[in-house]
């Protein structure tokens, strides 16, 4: 018999186990799912770099502690002006708890998920999330609230999910944790814009773990834009899990610049034929920031199309990670998948880890991937400088152009402009440094 290797638990793992024991009685519903996820955590611990999916983001080493969850303050945690888009109705989440649904017009139905879980009308283990991913498991174990949205078939709507993870003004906690789950059921033929923003405390080393599930009905069209401007010291974990019914179309963009460590996972499953996916990422990191985009696109049925375009700009000693896996199941013929990850390294010590993967089990498919990594083109810089642009301005123009292509898929002009403004802000801070 092979000897059993017993790994020592880290302080964070021990604390997570103690936390669940202490909190479980007060967690709303989904007791069986939480218990199952907890057993997996207890058995395997946090994923270290030995787990392939976490090779570049060693959660076991990065998660030093498991701070307590905190409740939102009594006042609303408002998203900042630079994040708000006036024309898009907003649902506010303070520390993961749904605080206010503003101007949400019918026919969309919005419920706090804590209540829905309590009543048993929803679970935390939707059929397509058979992931047993450790980050999703942590969310399943500890999540207290979030929202359940029902978008009726044929409707056309926009919604802003505004997450703010912060303490109130008086509190000075060094660290805290927040988690939430949002489940959005999009009816057949509905068109939905989901704008999801994440901001947070600049003072605390907090940990966030937010999961969004999107279930697209037949012919539904969803544009999902996630903006991460979380606190500089934060550990930001997030997951998008989506399922596409026949003829459904999803464009999802992860626009990421916040957090000391950020990992965004996208798990997409094709449930019906002729569905289309356009998955995008725009990442700007500097200092010693670490940002990981991990995606698994699972073509489980024939005639699916997927496009992935990820662009990363890393300055100073920042580290970008892209892990993209396209799976084409044996019967998923006529799949068309194209994946690209391009990185621009501005700092001498900046690094990018690109890992594109194709797992193809069908024989009549078109799939390709490409990954590039490099510095700005000196000849282009010289050309711009020879016209009078100082080096930093010339660099800024080229960086904006590099990231700009990713934003082209954002159809709402105001939203696209506000993302471009965030890029300009990031570059202006670089010029000022």
């Amino acid at each position, binding site marked *: 018999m092979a000897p059993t290797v017993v790994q020592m638990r880290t302080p964070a793992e021990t604390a997570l186990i103690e936390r669940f024991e202490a909190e479980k009685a007060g967690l709303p519903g989904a007791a069986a799912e939480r218990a199952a996820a907890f057993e997996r955590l207890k058995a395997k611990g946090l994923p270290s770099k030995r787990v392939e999916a976490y090779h570049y983001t060693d959660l076991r080493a990065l998660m030093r502690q498991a701070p307590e969850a905190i409740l939102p303050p009594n006042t609303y945690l408002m998203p900042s002006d630079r994040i708000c888009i006036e024309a898009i109705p907003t649902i506010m989440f303070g520390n993961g708890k749904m605080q206010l649904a503003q101007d949400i017009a019918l026919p969309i139905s919005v419920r706090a998920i804590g209540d829905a879980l309590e009543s048993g009308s929803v679970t935390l283990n939707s059929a397509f999330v058979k992931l047993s991913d450790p980050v999703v498991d942590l969310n399943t174990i500890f999540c207290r609230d979030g929202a359940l949205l029902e978008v009726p078939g044929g409707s056309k709507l926009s919604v802003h999910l505004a997450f703010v993870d912060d303490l109130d003004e008086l509190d000075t906690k060094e660290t805290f944790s927040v988690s939430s789950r949002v489940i959005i059921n999009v009816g057949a033929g509905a068109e939905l814009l989901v704008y999801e923003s994440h901001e947070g405390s600049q003072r605390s080393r907090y940990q966030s773990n937010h999961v969004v599930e999107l279930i697209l009905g037949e012919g539904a069209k969803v544009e999902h834009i996630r903006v991460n401007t979380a606190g500089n010291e934060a550990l930001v974990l997030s997951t998008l899990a989506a399922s596409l019914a026949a003829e459904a179309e999803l464009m999802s963009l992860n626009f990421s610049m916040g957090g000391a460590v950020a990992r965004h996972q996208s798990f997409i499953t094709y449930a019906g034929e002729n569905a289309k996916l356009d998955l995008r990422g725009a990442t700007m990191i500097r200092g010693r920031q670490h940002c990981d985009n991990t995606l698994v696109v699972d073509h489980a049925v024939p005639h699916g199309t997927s496009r992935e375009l990820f662009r990363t700009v890393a300055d100073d000693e920042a580290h970008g990670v892209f892990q993209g896996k396209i799976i084409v199941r044996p019967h998923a013929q006529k799949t068309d998948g194209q994946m690209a990850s391009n990185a621009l390294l501005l700092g001498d010590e900046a690094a990018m880890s690109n890992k594109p993967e194709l797992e193809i089990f069908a024989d009549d498919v078109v799939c390709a991937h490409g990954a590039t990594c490099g510095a700005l083109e000196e000849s282009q810089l010289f050309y711009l*400088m020879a016209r009078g642009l100082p*080096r930093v301005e010339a660099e800024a123009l080229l960086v904006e152009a590099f990231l700009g292509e990713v934003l082209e898929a954002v159809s709402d002009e105001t939203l696209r402009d506000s993302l471009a403004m965030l890029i300009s802000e990031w570059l202006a801070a670089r010029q000022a440094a």
Partner: protein
Amino acid sequence: MLEIKNLHVEIDDKKILNGLTLTIHPGEVAAIMGPNGSGKSTLSYVIAGKEDYTVTEGDILLNGNSILEMEANERAAAGLFLAFQYPLEIPGVATMTFLKAAMNAQAKARGEAELSPGDFMRKVRGAAEKLGINPDMLKRPLNVGFSGGEKKRMEILQMTLLDPAYCILDETDSGLDIDALRIVAEGVNALRGAGRGMLVITHYQRLLDHIVPDKVHVMAKGRIVKSGGPELAHELEKDGYANYVEAA
């Protein structure tokens, strides 16, 4: 006055310019002709401030001040303009955005006020029209997918808008058919005078039929080996460079 004094230049330990001396007076159009590998493009890059080159000896003075320690953008703001032999394609940067950024950067460096958006648009449209540039091209990414002629016209448009004191035109005729050559030459001729100096670098006499220089300099092995009037260009066209290369 743009003065190049005893200029010695190396790249990767290879000597390219060997004591080149040349003066361009305000309002003067000087042509440099020379065979391949004589260092013509190196000269244009060194004047414009490309970093790959090492100046081991000599100096370049603009109105009496050395420009060797200046960055390319500072040289541009001081009044130098290089029309590239191969203008770079800049994907994702709209031509209009680029023109505005360049004009504003130079205005800022000179302590001048930026143009109002209205004045900027009028100025660009007017200059583009004279060069036969379709306004739609200005919305496209800079030089991306432009033909050789369109790229060269775009260089002359930039030259017109930036209003430099000294222009260096590096093989501006390369890749142009005769119609495009005429349009580009007309654009250049329109900028002559008013104290503006020009250095026209070319292989062939053809361009100099359209832009008639005040002076012609022959370059071989990294220095000027002969200077004369416009007639020198015709001699070269007839007899070739061989005599000069051997003499150098």
